[in-house]
């Protein structure tokens, strides 16, 4: 059976109707919920800057991480774990360097998140390249391990000095990312995320590595038989860069928003990232837009929970709906995939 546009449109309409129907059936005031959703994400400059764009920052970076992996035919579902490990490493750095200027501390904090995320991804990368382990399974297993690792750290060696709360102590001022202006909570991490997308776009389009990435993703068999491309090496690299970007997102989250490491530091950014990447059709520049879209959705959902009592987990339903609609339309940007 071929993709039929009419069928796909039907699916999308069914999803929207189903969504609204779900809220009505559950007894929520849909009008009020919709108002809270819009107002909480786009209703004021404060909502845009301190709500939407702050939420968009980790989503853009993890979305970019997922997109780069998917472009290379690597199904990295592990951005969540790489984000968490990146956050933990950044926190460890931020807490161990004292009495130093921000210009020294901040780059080290971000770098440690970047490196840790890449190292965490390297486990799944080696398992795939050397042992042919399906990365979907391995990255998800590693997500759970990462969550338990942080749970251990914030209740054990990294717990705050009073040993009451499962979190680290608050970072010193030198490890706080600067904000754009005094009236907003928006930090320069957003600019870093946008710059990363621009850089990735350029690299994928205009460099030899980017070309190899695209070829391997489009058709690994052809890339291998052409002889000039080491497929495993390209896969490995894409996986590492992907993990590093997700780790950087974690580092930015702890040094820009929370200033401490907690359990559940990520409300599922790594999973939302898949929707972000697919909506952008894996295009690095488009990810800025789709990241902001989903940032608005998440910020709006928080307002919706507060003002209309609609559980914010409903966002997962919307994200799943978006992904499935794109899948139905055959517009995911993923090349014909062969069994790994």
């Amino acid at each position, binding site marked *: 059976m071929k993709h039929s546009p009419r069928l796909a449109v039907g699916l999308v309409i069914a999803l929207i109707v189903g969504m609204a129907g779900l809220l009505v059936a559950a007894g929520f005031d849909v009008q009020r919920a919709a108002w809270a959703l819009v107002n909480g994400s786009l209703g004021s400059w404060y909502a845009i800057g301190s709500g939407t764009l702050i939420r968009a920052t980790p989503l853009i970076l993890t979305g970019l991480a997922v997109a780069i992996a998917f472009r290379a035919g690597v199904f990295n579902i592990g951005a969540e774990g790489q984000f968490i490990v990146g956050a933990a490493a950044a926190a460890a750095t931020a807490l161990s360097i004292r009495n130093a200027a921000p210009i020294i501390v901040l780059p080290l904090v971000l770098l440690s998140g970047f490196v840790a995320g890449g190292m965490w991804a390297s486990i799944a990368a080696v398992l795939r390249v050397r042992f042919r382990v399906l990365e979907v399974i391995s990255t998800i297993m590693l997500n759970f391990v990462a969550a338990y690792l942080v749970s251990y750290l914030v209740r054990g060696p990294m717990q705050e000095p009073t040993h009451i709360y499962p979190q680290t102590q608050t970072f010193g001022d030198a490890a706080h990312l600067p904000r754009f202006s005094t009236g907003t909570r928006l930090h320069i991490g957003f600019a870093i995320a946008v710059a990363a997308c621009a850089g990735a776009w350029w690299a994928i389009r205009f460099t030899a590595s980017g070309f190899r990435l695209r070829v391997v993703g489009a058709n690994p068999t052809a890339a291998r038989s052409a002889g000039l491309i080491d497929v495993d090496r390209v896969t490995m690299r894409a996986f590492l860069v992907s993990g590093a970007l997700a780790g950087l997102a974690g580092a930015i989250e702890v040094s820009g928003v929370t200033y401490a490491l907690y359990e559940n530091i990520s409300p599922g950014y790594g999973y939302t990232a898949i929707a972000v990447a697919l909506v952008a059709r894996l295009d690095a520049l488009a990810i800025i837009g789709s990241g902001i879209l989903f940032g608005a959705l998440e910020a709006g959902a928080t307002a919706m929970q507060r003002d209309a009592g609609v559980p914010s987990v409903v966002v997962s339903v919307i994200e799943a709906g978006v992904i*499935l609609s794109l899948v139905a339309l055959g517009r995911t940007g993923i090349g014909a995939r062969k069994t790994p």
Partner: protein
Amino acid sequence: MSSPATAFAEATVRTATPLALAAIGEVVVERAGIINISLEGIILSGCFGGLVGATHAGAMGGYAASMLFGVAAAIAFALFAVWLRADQIISGTAVTLLAIGLTGTLYRTLYGTAGAGLSIPTTGPVPIPALSRIPVLGPGLFEQPIVTYATYLLVPLVWWWMYKTHAGLALRAVGENPVAAEATGIRVSRMRFGAMIFGGLTGGLAGGALVLAQAGTFAEGMSAGRGFIAIAIVVLGRWHPLGVAVAALVFGGASALQFLLQALGLALPYQLFLSLPYVLTLAGLAGMAGRVRAPAALARIEGP
């Protein structure tokens, strides 16, 4: 309290039950050439179905509803993966995400945010007369909830169906070479849909077992990666029903190890035990590298 060895055997079988159920369905699905990444969502739907059914119609109603909910999630995945021939990994991930969102939303709506202490009718262990009195292993194997006995029956049944019937042969043909299978008159899509419905039944029942025979309550996201572990178990069991049953027991044992080690009084962080099944999955998959062969058509989109 019984001896640590008995407790260990009992906990092994108990924790292995939902894994074995989910994995036995996944064997059938994968032998039809589909990798069911939505299994996690199917189990979670089954958990929620178990809760809804049990609050309205008792524990047995819970099991029935868990299978119904599991099948609903399986059909959602099959619509995309089989009917539309969409990428199985992406659509499977999306269906899992959908299940997380729907069960979470409905749970908070129907039972409120303070539902954590919710207790529902459960099915306790039913000792089988003579057999449960075998020393050490008896209580472990034969003093279990009813759903475990159902699993004991299901494993040889699936083995028999898959290897001794024409339909089972057809299923395996579909997973190896769908084009050739279609040419001999096998309805490939119908076969795959059927396999998915079976996968939904057992995956949903696995969720029901988690709620009704283990936890005694529902928690958001309580499937906790078991769907993915079950997929790994299928690899470790070499796509064979009996191998899968053994692999599920090994995993149950790894999870039950925490009770044994706690009984021995070892002061290790509990997170270490909790992450053990996931680490073991990784180690197991790496160890099987190059020694197993997946159904040839697994996860391939092209076909008749």
